[in-house]
């Protein structure tokens, strides 16, 4: 196996004498110098050997097809890809579809006799060297489908013999060099699919030999097409598609008597199609689509006997389609879609015996479909949609046995669907929607064995669906919506196992929904809405596991909703509204985990709303249960629907308060009108913006003087329990972390002052209510002083639950005061159970206050105290200068889970001995991010705690785990305080267990002193361990599940 010679290009300046024949290229001398040193016998052929080897050598993975490229050969004439002249000079390099991944050979000009240079599909990189222009023998340059960059060297213009220049499908940039106009023998110019820019060079018009010009796919080639191109008498192909060439098509093109293909689509051509093109008698392909051509289709084009494809869609063409088009006998494809052609479909189209596609969509074509069209027996596609075509569909269309696609939707077609259509045995897709077709469905239509799509939406089709529908097993999409179809749904639908989309909505169908529909296991969409279907909802529907949309709304369906619908795991939209469904909503519907929209409105559903529905996390579009007879309260689990946009519970008999709705933060529309709801409204922006009509008809709901009906901190009834849990957890933490005094109970000093307020109408609301004041710190100011500061000019922020003021007190101290939105129980005269609700509200306010008061930590602004009267509640905090408003905002959004977060922060502070934002934490990280970054290693512990006995540090690390769960970024993923308490308890429990184990172990060891325990603990001990480990759930099992438990190591 010959090794390619390792070779580096010398960089030193050459002072060697030129004792060889002269050459244009300077590189030559460099190379030759080295060469002379290495070899005694100098021959030109060996230069070629050396050049080729040094070039190919750089390839990272050389194909085995180069194995005969031997450095010891005198010439490369027997090498693969190489052809030589009789004198032993390389005349042809031809490497195609071989992966090289090397730069363009830089010393190409060494090959003085090179005629064909072809390296295509080889991932050639780099630029084309200008020295290529020195290879004056070149006839063919073909380096297409590579990764060449840079511009096309102007020096190529020196190649007088060049016939083929193929640089297509690279990444070439720059302009097309006008010098190419000097390559007088050029026949084929392929520059397409590059990044070339600039104009089409006029100079190319000088090249009378040119046969093919392909410059398309250079998206930045612009300017007009030069008239001079009409001089290229031999031109057969002109490709300029997908460029930005503009202006009109030169009339001079009429002189191109050999032109076969004119391909200038997806460009910016304007003006009219020159009638002179009718002189291009050799024209086969005329591709001018996606331009801005105007005017009409010139009659002269109809002289083109060889024209096969006429594609001029998406232009601004007007006028009629010339009747003479029937003269273009070779036409196979006519696409005139998306223009403004008028007049009727030329009858002469029937003469086009080769015609395969007639596409006239989206024009203004009128008249009727000519029956003569049936003579074009090769017709495969007939697309006439979105026109003004009227009259009946001719019976003769049935003669088109090759027809696969027949689209005529959005026209004015009348009469019935011809039964003869069943003669079009190749039909795959028929869309005749949005016409005025009448009569009944011809049963023969369903004998078509290739028919996959049948769309007849919005016509006047009457009569029944023939049972033959079951024969059309190929059907994938059947839409007969909005017609006047009568009778029952044939049970034969069950045979259509390929059916994917069945829409029979908006008809007059009666009778039951056949059980057999459940056999259509491929169904993804079933819409039977707006009929008069009766009977029950067949539970067989639940076997359609792929069903995504089920719409049975506005029928006369009775009975209950089958619980088995819970098996519809793919269902996305379940719409059963406007029926006579009764009984309760099956809780199993909660298993439809893909549901995004559930509409059960306007039925007779009773019972309470099953909370299981609220397990459907993705239910984000709408939940409509309105106009039923539902009772009971809204289950608090509704807070699980955090993504829900629209909720309609109106016109039921629901009761209880609306607090469970307060956490539906994505709500955009809510209607709870006409129920028996009671109590206050959750105080948030959404409820404040809700219109009265969405709330009306609830006698027990605070609605008069709406402003006073907002309960500030919506709490569920277990709120009290929650705060008890919080305290319990704090106590537990204290025990575990060994007297961390920071969390010691804060003595709440309740100094209740009674202050007259008669000067501030804003605060007093016109009444004089006495003030209660609860400071949580030692405070040197009075309520009166605070009240004076609550003026508009001191407002520093407004939030969901109140306004924040900056209050400068007489002693110079500055505090922030949050005034919660007013909630005056006294004004709520409408309320029957005033005292109870009032107490509930007071409780939640107090809870918030006591929670905040007992957590005095840096991550939360220091809470100084609160004061309230019947109108107003004020919370007072340390003033944080500019930019800290968000922290007050934080205060405004205390929820159960943010309490958990705060608790987690407190624990982290205790264990690390650091503040949430601490100068000793590097990079200004927040404590949470820092601890996470430390991967929970023991170094996060406060140094003073690290010296504690091992079992204690371990417990601390476990407590760490609990804390990290609490500060999970997603509130949903945080544990509840109940969980936290349980976990902390477990940590202590473990210690007690382990103490027992230790004791037992000591005993065992004492009793078995002679026993070596190298083999591990005794069976007894193992048993004890396994028992204690199995029974324990702890944070460590989450965090240290893979690490060994230190306690299992015998000491």
């Amino acid at each position, binding site marked *: 196996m010959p090794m390619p010679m390792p070779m580096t290009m010398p960089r030193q300046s050459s002072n060697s004498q030129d004792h060889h024949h002269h050459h244009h290229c300077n590189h030559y001398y460099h190379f030759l110098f080295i060469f002379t040193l290495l070899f005694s016998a100098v021959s030109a052929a060996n230069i070629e050997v050396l050049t080729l080897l040094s070039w190919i050598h750089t390839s990272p993975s050389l194909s085995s097809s180069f194995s005969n490229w031997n450095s010891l050969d005198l010439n490369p004439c027997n090498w693969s890809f190489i052809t030589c002249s009789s004198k032993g000079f390389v005349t042809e390099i031809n490497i195609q579809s071989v992966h090289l991944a090397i730069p363009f050979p830089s010393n190409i000009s060494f090959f003085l006799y090179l005629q064909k240079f072809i390296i295509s599909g080889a991932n050639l990189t780099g630029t084309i060297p200008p020295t290529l222009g020195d290879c004056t023998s070149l006839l063919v340059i073909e380096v297409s489908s590579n990764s060449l960059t840079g511009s096309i060297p102007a020096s190529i213009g020196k190649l007088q013999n060049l016939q083929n220049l193929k640089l297509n499908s690279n990444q070439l940039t720059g302009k097309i060099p006008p010098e190419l106009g000097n390559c007088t023998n050029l026949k084929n110019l392929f520059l397409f699919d590059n990044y070339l820019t600039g104009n089409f060079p006029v100079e190319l018009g000088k090249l009378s030999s040119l046969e093919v010009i392909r410059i398309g796919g250079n998206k930045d080639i612009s300017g007009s097409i030069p008239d001079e191109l009409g001089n290229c008498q031999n031109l057969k192909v002109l490709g300029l598609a997908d460029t930005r060439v503009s202006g009109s098509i030169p009339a001079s093109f009429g002189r191109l008597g050999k032109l076969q293909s004119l391909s200038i689509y997806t460009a910016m051509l304007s003006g009219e199609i020159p009638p002179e093109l009718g002189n291009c008698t050799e024209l086969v392909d005329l591709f001018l689509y996606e331009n801005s051509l105007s005017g009409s289709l010139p009659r002269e084009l109809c002289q083109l006997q060889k024209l096969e494809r006429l594609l001029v869609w998406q232009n601004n063409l007007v006028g009629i389609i010339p009747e003479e088009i029937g003269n273009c006998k070779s036409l196979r494809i006519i696409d005139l879609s998306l223009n403004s052609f008028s007049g009727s479909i030329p009858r002469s189209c029937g003469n086009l015996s080769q015609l395969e596609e007639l596409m006239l969509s*989206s024009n203004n074509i009128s008249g009727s479909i000519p029956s003569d069209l049936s003579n074009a027996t090769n017709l495969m596609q007939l697309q006439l949609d*979105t026109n003004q075509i009227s009259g009946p569909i001719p019976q003769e269309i049935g003669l088109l046995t090759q027809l696969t696609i027949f689209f005529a*939707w959005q026209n004015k077609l009348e009469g019935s669907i011809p039964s003869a259509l069943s003669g079009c045995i190749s039909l795959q897709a028929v869309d005749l929607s949005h016409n005025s077709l009448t009569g009944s469905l011809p049963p023969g239509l369903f004998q078509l064995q290739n028919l996959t799509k049948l769309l007849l939406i919005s016509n006047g089709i009457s009569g029944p669906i023939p049972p033959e529908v079951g024969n059309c097993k190929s059907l994938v999409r059947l839409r007969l919506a909005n017609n006047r179809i009568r009778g029952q749904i044939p049970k034969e639908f069950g045979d259509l196992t390929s059916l*994917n*989309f069945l*829409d029979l909505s908006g008809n007059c169908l009666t009778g039951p929904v056949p059980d057999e529909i459940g056999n259509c296991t491929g169904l*993804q*969409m079933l819409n039977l809405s707006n009929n008069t279907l009766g009977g029950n909802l067949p539970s067989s529907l639940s076997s359609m596991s792929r069903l*995504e*949309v089920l719409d049975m709304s506005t029928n006369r369906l009775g009975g209950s909703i089958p619980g088995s619908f819970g098996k519809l795991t793919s269902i*996305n939209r379940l719409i059963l509204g406007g029926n006579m469904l009764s009984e309760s909503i099956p809780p199993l519907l909660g298993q439809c985990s893909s549901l*995004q929209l559930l509409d059960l409105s306007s039925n007779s559903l009773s019972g309470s709303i099953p909370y299981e529905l609220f397990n459907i996390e*993705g239910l*984000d*579009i709408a939940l409509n249960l309105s106009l039923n007879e539902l009772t009971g309260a809204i289950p608090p689990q509704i807070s699980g629907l955090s993504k829900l*946009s629209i909720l309609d519970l109106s016109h039921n008999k629901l009761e209880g308060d609306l607090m469970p709705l307060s956490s539906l*933060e*994505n709500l*955009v529309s809510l209607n709870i009108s006409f129920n028996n709801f009671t109590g206050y409204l959750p105080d948030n*922006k*959404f409820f404040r913006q809700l219109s009265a009509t969405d709330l009306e008809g609830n006698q027990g709901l605070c609605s008069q003087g709406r402003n006073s009906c907002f309960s500030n901190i919506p709490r569920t009834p277990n709120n009290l329990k929650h705060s008890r849990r919080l305290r319990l957890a704090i106590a537990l933490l204290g025990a575990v972390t060994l007297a961390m005094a920071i969390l010691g109970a804060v003595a709440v000093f309740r100094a209740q002052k009674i202050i007259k307020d008669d000067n501030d109408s804003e605060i007093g609301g016109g009444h004089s209510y006495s003030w209660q004041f609860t400071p949580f710190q030692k405070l040197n100011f009075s309520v009166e002083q605070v009240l004076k500061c609550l003026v508009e000019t001191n407002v520093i*922020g*407004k*939030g*969901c639950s109140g306004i924040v003021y900056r209050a400068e007190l007489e002693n110079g101290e500055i505090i922030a005061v949050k005034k919660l939105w007013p909630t005056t129980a006294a004004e709520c005269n409408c309320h029957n159970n005033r005292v109870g609700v009032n107490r509930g509200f007071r409780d939640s306010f107090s809870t918030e206050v006591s929670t905040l008061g007992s957590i005095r930590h*840096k991550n939360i602004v220091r809470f100084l105290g609160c004061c309230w009267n019947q109108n107003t509640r004020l919370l007072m905090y*340390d003033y*944080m*200068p*500019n*930019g*800290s*408003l*968000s*922290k007050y*905002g*934080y205060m405004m*959004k205390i929820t159960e889970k*943010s309490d958990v*977060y705060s608790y987690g922060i407190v624990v982290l502070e205790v264990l690390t001995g650091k*503040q949430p*934002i601490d100068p000793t934490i590097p990079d*200004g990280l*927040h404590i*949470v*991010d820092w601890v996470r970054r430390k991967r929970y290693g023991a170094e996060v512990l406060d*140094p*003073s705690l690290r*010296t*504690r006995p091992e079992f204690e540090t371990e417990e601390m690390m476990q407590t760490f785990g609990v804390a990290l769960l609490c500060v999970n*970024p997603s509130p949903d993923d945080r544990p509840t305080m109940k969980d936290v308490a349980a976990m902390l308890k477990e940590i202590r429990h473990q210690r007690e267990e382990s103490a027992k184990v230790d004791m037992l172990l000591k005993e065992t060891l004492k009793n078995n002193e002679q026993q070596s325990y190298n083999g591990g603990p005794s069976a007894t001990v193992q048993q004890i361990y396994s028992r204690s480990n199995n029974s324990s759930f702890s944070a460590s099992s989450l965090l240290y599940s893979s690490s060994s438990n230190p306690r299992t190591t015998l000491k």
Partner: protein
Amino acid sequence: MELFARTISASALALLCLILVFTLFSTVYGNSEGDALNALKTNLVDPNNVLQSWDATLVNPCTWFHVTCNSDNSVTRVDLGNANLSGQLVPQLGQLPNLQYLELYSNTISGTIPSELGDLANLVSLDLYFNNLSGSIPGSLGNLQKLRFLRLNNNTLSGTIPNSLTNVYSLQVLDLSYNHLTGTVPVNGSFSLFTPISFVGNYLASPPPSPPPPPSPSTPPSSS
């Protein structure tokens, strides 16, 4: 009389033109929305065939699953959360003039957020959270005057939080947490509502210093 007839014919012509323009417009409109969504489909990798029903040959995309239209057959929602999609978003998404909800959360979509989303004048909710989006948050999102929910959290978005977002006064929920955002958090305009929770897990400058901490207790000697 002649004048009357001329007026009649002129107004009839005007009406005709109007109808014509409207028809043309509505046709193009329907197709362009389907084209825009189809462009999205072709740029996404869809191993679960969630987009199987997205048939570009249909008149409009209103029968495609996970797409919702209004009564004028214009797209109002695209719901593709948790759909195991990867690939990139496309600028054509800006061509859905009535889009209210763009829900593409919890996928593995990469690339940048196209600035053209700022053209969606009716957008209420933009949920792109839990993806692999990178690049900056386009300032054009500040044009979305109906936007209520903007959740871009848990991506790898970088750059600063565009100040233009503070002009979106309709904004109710903002979550930019867990990205690679730098700079400062705007505090004015609509941002006065939002808490640090909306911004955690970024490289944003620390909030202004809280009051000086009490002198830190000297480390007690280790217990013996």
